Each structure stands twice: as structure tokens, then as C-alpha cells.
């Protein structure tokens, strides 16, 4: 059955996205899983959801991931251990078994109730779910402002690092000292960072 094979494909590529150790390949695998999900949506007649899924999740989010991976590449890459390849199948098997048992119990217990036909998509979106749209606008503003605030050009706050230098830290002193040092030279903070990397380009 097409539906079942699409579901299996979706789960398979998600597992690959989790288990693959190279970040870039992992992001691509996630994008492929998104495509499977989008086709699944089309098959279930949810065309608008499918279009959105493909364009936003398989497109925009993948681009965001790849950008972030590129910007953080090269400085001490963290590679996951290989033991995941052994542990995960056990975990997944247990999960699948529990899942099948629970679903079997629920078979036939859920009453079937079908809603009356609602309006067209445009009608539902603009007229019935208008408050959601206000929320979406808010979420988009929040995301944009968050990114702007986190990437703003500015002095590292000199007055702010020292309190944390005094506050008790469990992680040992040297990292705190470093941060405090970087903080106390406000305008050279960024320059010092760039200076410490020969290939400073990856940070911009």
C-alpha cells in the first residue's frame, strides 16, 4: 500500500537523520524525510499542508540548518559515538513492540464520527482561524526580533561580565576568567575572537 510505504519511508529517513554522524548528510536526510511527509499529505488529500511542508520544512529549515552548520564548522567538531548504532536498534525494537501492543488494544475502540463539510480552505483560514493568523504574525515578529537581538552589532557588555565572574560557578575558574576577560575589553571582544582564528571568514 502506498500509504504504508510512505509512512515507513518517513520513519526510515528520520532514523537516518538521527543516526548519521556527519551533520550535513543528516540535514539532507531530514529534508528527504520532509519530502516523504509532504507526499503523504498529498496522498491524504491535504494539499495545502503538503505544499507548505515541502516549501518551508524541506526548503527553508534545511537551508537554515545548512547555514548554521557552515557557520559553526571547523572548530572542534563533535562527532557522536558509534555506540548509538548498537543501542538504537534495541531501543527502536522496544518502542515498536510497545507501540504495536497499545495500538492493537485501541483497535475498534475509537468511535467513528465524521464532521459535516466545512468551507473551502480559504474560507476556513481567513474567516474561522483569523486569531491563528494574528498569532502567526506574532510568532514571525518574535523570531525575527530574536535573531536580530542575538546578532546585533554591539559592545560586549563590560559591566555585565563581572557579576558572573563573582557568582559561584561549579565549572571551575578558568572558563569564567576567560569570559570575564573578554568582557572587560568591550570593544576588542569581537576582534579578539576573530584574531584567534586564522580562518576568520567562517564567523562572518
Amino acid at each position: 500500500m502506498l500509504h504504508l510505504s510512505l509512512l515507513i519511508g518517513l520513519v526510515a529517513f528520520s532514523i537516518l537523520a538521527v543516526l548519521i554522524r556527519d551533520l550535513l548528510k543528516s540535514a539532507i536526510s531530514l529534508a528527504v524525510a520532509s519530502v516523504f511527509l509532504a507526499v503523504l499529505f498529498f496522498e491524504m488529500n491535504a494539499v495545502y499542508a503538503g505544499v507548505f511542508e515541502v516549501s518551508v520544512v524541506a526548503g527553508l529549515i534545511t537551508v537554515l540548518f545548512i547555514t548554521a552548520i557552515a557557520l559553526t564548522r571547523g572548530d572542534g567538531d563533535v562527532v557522536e559515538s558509534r555506540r548509538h548504532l548498537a543501542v538504537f536498534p534495541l531501543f527502536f525494537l522496544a518502542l515498536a513492540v510497545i507501540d504495536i501492543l497499545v495500538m492493537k488494544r485501541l483497535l475498534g475502540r475509537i468511535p467513528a464520527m465524521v464532521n459535516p463539510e466545512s468551507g473551502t480552505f480559504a474560507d476556513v483560514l481567513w474567516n474561522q482561524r483569523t486569531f491563528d493568523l494574528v498569532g502567526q504574525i506574532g510568532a514571525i515578529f518574535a523570531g525575527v526580533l530574536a535573531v536580530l537581538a542575538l546578532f546585533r552589532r554591539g559592545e560586549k557588555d563590560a559591566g555585565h561580565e563581572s557579576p558572573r565572574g563573582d557568582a559561584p560557578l561549579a565549572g571551575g575558574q578558568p572558563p569564567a576568567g576567560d569570559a570575564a576577560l573578554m568582557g572587560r575589553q568591550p570593544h576588542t571582544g569581537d576582534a579578539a575572537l576573530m584574531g584567534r582564528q586564522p580562518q576568520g571568514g567562517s564567523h562572518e
Partner: protein
Amino acid sequence: MNNMWILNMGFVALLIGVGLYCLLTMRNAVKLLIGIEVIAKGVTLALVAGGFARNSLMLAQCLVITVIVVDVAVIATALALIININRHTKSLDVRKLTKLKG
């Protein structure tokens, strides 16, 4: 119709399980975000499956679109945080983020 819903929800459970595994065991910060993405896929599938079972696909799609938009905003913020953290600690290892304890 409802056995289809149960089938779909079974796979949703698998997806969410896989996502949670990723969050619990992975060390790379970007991998953790991929785990969150997998969970988000599971939840959007659950929404559409519910709409499919109840023949209210229009409502379900509106919900899914909103969820996807919100998810993008969260991922963007999270990636901004990760890039900033990377500037401080020069690595993406979440085990290095243990300064706050106790």
C-alpha cells in the same frame, strides 16, 4: 476509517520516540535541533491524520500551517543561540554547557 487513524498514530508514536531518543542521547547541539524537528514532523502528521479521520481536512491544514510557521521561528532562534554559543566555546558539544549547576 478509524483503523487508519490508529495506524497513522502508531507511526506518529515511532517518530516521536525517535526524536526523543535523539534529544536524550546526542551530544551535538545541531543534532538536538534535528531531534526537535523529527518530533515536529510527528506532531504535524498527527494533526493531519486527525483531520483525515474526521473529514475536517481544511481545519487540520490551517493548524498544520500555523504549526510549521511557529516551528520555523523556534528553529531560527535556536540556531541563533547555537551560533552565539559556538562563538564562546568554539564547539557544539552540549557536554561543555555545564557551567550552571547546583
